[in-house]
């Protein structure tokens, strides 16, 4: 029981981290970025390349990965999303295509075999019979810190409030003098950075391979759909529902069915309550 | 003579806001009625209730003596009522003829497959709202606001309604265009079309209607000939905002 509890919290923390960047884009830009999973992949591979191939220290490697994610976000916004002028379905289709393109790019550079990422933080903890790697513990703590920081950023800073304004009413924000284009670009950059940070942790939790973007994308989608549009707190709650259900399914039913609940949740919520369980919250 | 459309004590609430509050009125066959009132009086809500885009909380809506409140939108159109929208909503990638074609279609999959479209009937309807023959091939993106309103009228007329609900047909039009649409409605009225019309352009409205109902805050406050209603004390104060 204790084990389920601990593992549940650890996994949910990771899932919240994975989902939050996706939520951000959805609430500010009103589009679903299906290439979001590719940020995680880029982050993971960038960290792998800089630390395990070039032998850079971990911190600069981490920053490099974050920067790559932010850059990818800005490029996606500039070259793709902005051109499609908020046509949601077109953005969805083109980001899906882009994700496959990035996947192919990764294969081209790194080939398609799986790679193991060394833990970012070594060592283990023991609580009773349960073993926890420091790595995932750090991921969970980082996730909480990042979510808290993001909440503060959105509520307290000028840029954050501008993001909030755009998320509530883009037209209104534009009329009151907010440069929505810049706010959008910032949001895409932050989302990309968050995605690649999540990617480094996610990759060290599982492994690196060119199709690793699909699973986290689906988790992010589920969290956003179930939590309702762009609520950071909703993101946190739903990440825990999904994380715990996966651990419970794996422990008590069958490991292969771990994702089934997530899918049923997506389908059920969208069909029965399309606005999400927690409705339309602000950021 | 029984009335074509009868609303009886219709109440519609959106959350805590009461959009129509026990509204009753009727329209006789061949009659034209103006629905007037300040912004937010509930005029457009009435239209969406009649069309079934929203359902009323209580009260009845009868068409030809038959209760239609339980019917979905497309069934109500088949029963003989149709509306236009304040903001025209054409099929953006179809030309004028295509838009009218959709309006004329029978609601029957088999007939839709086996019977081909009738270009002559499309042309007749297009001409009846004042399109020239060469306009049939134009796309909505090439049309002026006045033409878009005409297209909206044509598409609605194509469904052969007994009663039309016209929502702000003069909004955003030039003086010349208002005159055109106005002439068109006068013509249709002469041909026996029944309609309810909502507009802020009271001057354009006056010659087009037999009767008016003034409403504010979801209630009818005056009813009678257009002149009577406009002279009504309550109506004046509602329009001037007390």
């Amino acid at each position: 029981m204790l084990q389920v509890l601990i593992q549940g919290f650890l996994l949910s923390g990771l899932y919240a981290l994975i989902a939050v960047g996706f939520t951000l884009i959805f609430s500010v830009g009103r589009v679903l970025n299906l290439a979001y999973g590719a940020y995680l992949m880029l982050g993971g591979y960038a960290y792998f390349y800089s630390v395990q191939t070039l032998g850079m220290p971990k911190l600069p490697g981490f920053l490099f990965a974050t920067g790559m994610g932010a850059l990818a976000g800005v490029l996606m916004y500039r070259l793709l999303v902005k051109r499609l002028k908020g046509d949601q379905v077109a953005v969805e289709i083109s980001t899906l295509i882009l994700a496959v393109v990035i996947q192919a790019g990764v294969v081209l550079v790194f080939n398609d075999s799986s790679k193991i990422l060394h833990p970012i933080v070594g060592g283990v903890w023991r609580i009773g019979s349960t073993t926890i790697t420091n790595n995932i513990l750090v991921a969970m703590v980082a996730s909480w810190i990042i979510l808290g920081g993001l909440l503060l950023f959105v509520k307290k800073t000028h840029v954050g409030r501008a993001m909030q304004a755009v998320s509530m009413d883009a037209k209104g924000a534009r009329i009151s003098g907010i440069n929505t284009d810049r706010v959008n670009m910032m949001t895409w950059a932050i989302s990309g950075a968050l995605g690649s940070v999540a990617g480094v942790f996610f990759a060290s939790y599982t492994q690196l391979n060119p199709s690793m973007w699909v699973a986290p994308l689906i988790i992010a989608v589920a969290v956003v759909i179930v939590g309702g549009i762009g609520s950071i707190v909703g993101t946190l709650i739903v990440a825990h529902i999904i994380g715990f259900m996966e651990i419970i399914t794996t422990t008590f039913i069958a490991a292969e069915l771990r994702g089934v609940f997530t899918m049923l949740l997506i389908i059920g919520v969208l069909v029965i309550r399309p606005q999400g369980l927690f409705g339309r919250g602000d950021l | 003579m029984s009335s074509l459309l009868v609303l009886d004590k219709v109440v519609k609430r959106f959350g805590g806001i009461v959009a129509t509050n026990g509204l009753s009125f009727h329209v006789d066959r061949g009659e034209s009625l103006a629905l007037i009132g300040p912004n937010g009086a509930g005029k457009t809500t009435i239209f969406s209730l009649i069309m079934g885009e929203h359902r009323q909380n209580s009260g009845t809506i009868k068409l030809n003596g038959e209760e239609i409140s339980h019917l979905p939108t497309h069934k109500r159109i088949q029963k003989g009522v149709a509306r236009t929208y304040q903001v025209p909503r054409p099929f953006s990638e179809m030309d004028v003829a295509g838009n009218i074609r959709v309006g004329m279609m029978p609601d029957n999959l088999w007939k839709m497959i086996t019977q081909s479209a009738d270009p002559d009937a499309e042309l007749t309807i297009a001409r009846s709202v004042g399109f020239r023959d060469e306009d049939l091939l134009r796309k909505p993106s090439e049309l002026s606001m006045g033409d878009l309103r005409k297209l909206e009228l044509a598409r609605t007329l194509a469904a052969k309604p007994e009663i039309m609900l016209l929502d702000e047909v003069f909004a955003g039009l030039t003086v010349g265009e208002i005159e055109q649409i106005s002439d068109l409605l006068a013509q249709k009225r002469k041909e026996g079309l029944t309609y309810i019309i909502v507009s802020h352009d009271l001057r354009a409205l006056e010659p087009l209607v037999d009767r008016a109902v003034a409403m504010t805050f979801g209630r009818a406050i005056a009813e009678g000939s257009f002149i009577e209603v406009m002279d009504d004390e309550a109506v004046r104060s509602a329009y001037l905002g007390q």
Partner: protein
Amino acid sequence: MARPLLGWAIFAVAMLLLPQFVSNGTLRIIIFANFLAIFAMSWDFISGKTGYISFGHPFLIGIGAYTSAILSYRFGMPVSLSIPLAVLATMVGGTLFFLPALRIKGTYFALVTLAFMELMYQLVQVIRPDLTGGTRGISGIKTILSGAAPNFYLSFGLMFAIGLALWLLSRTRLGTALDAISMNEEAVSGSGLNTTRLKLFAFMVSALVAGLGGAFYVHYLGSIAPRALFDINFVFTIIVSVLIGGSATIIGPIMGAFFMTFLLEYLRPLLPGSERYLVYGMIALVLYVYQPKGIMQILKNLSLRTRGPQTGRSGNV
């Protein structure tokens, strides 16, 4: 009407003569293109026409393929019976697929279909692996014909019949009504049409085509495995074929499927691995952002430019 039909006839004759001129290897590539074209047309009939984007089309294709594979391999049923049953099962699955479309559209609908596909992928591996073969799938499934040329004729015949039927269907007023749904669904019901019935019809036709394609495909390959089938890359290939060719046109998806298949094949010597998807995806992306209506529209624009604007009334295609 007469000129496009002549085009179809020329297309048929050219393709039927093809085995005389090309190698078996090329024929096998075209067989794949034929199946891809079938799947692309199935997608186009829901997503291109009505605008309800499906990201989970392999869900439908998979029902068709698995049903026929299981019935013939596990229960020894003849293909002449298992395929019709598979198509029926796919249409039942299509009804399931349709339910969300009653309430949601756009982005959300696309995501539900994606979830349907992933759900199917996981369930196929866990529920009754004795029937589905679990993660490994099934191999040794009965094939209908052997040899490249007979299979080419079969797949082409199927593709051609489906293509012609869908093309004729979309030229009727029903096709116009479905197009109208993608532009403004409320206005369609505002014209007195039952949009639920129209959409259900589109879904049923699409499921029928997906089921036929899936079933025949599995009896061509002789094997089936969940990973290759319920794969986002497969969805990608289908959607890109349609978009490149031009959606809601039926002919477009056929052109797109052939174009994409040959592009992939010609890139094979240059880029042997899955890197080909890089070039392939880039082309698709640039084309999509530049001209979302695909090759069909580019060709149309070109012919307008060279021949001048057409006179007289054109049908809505």
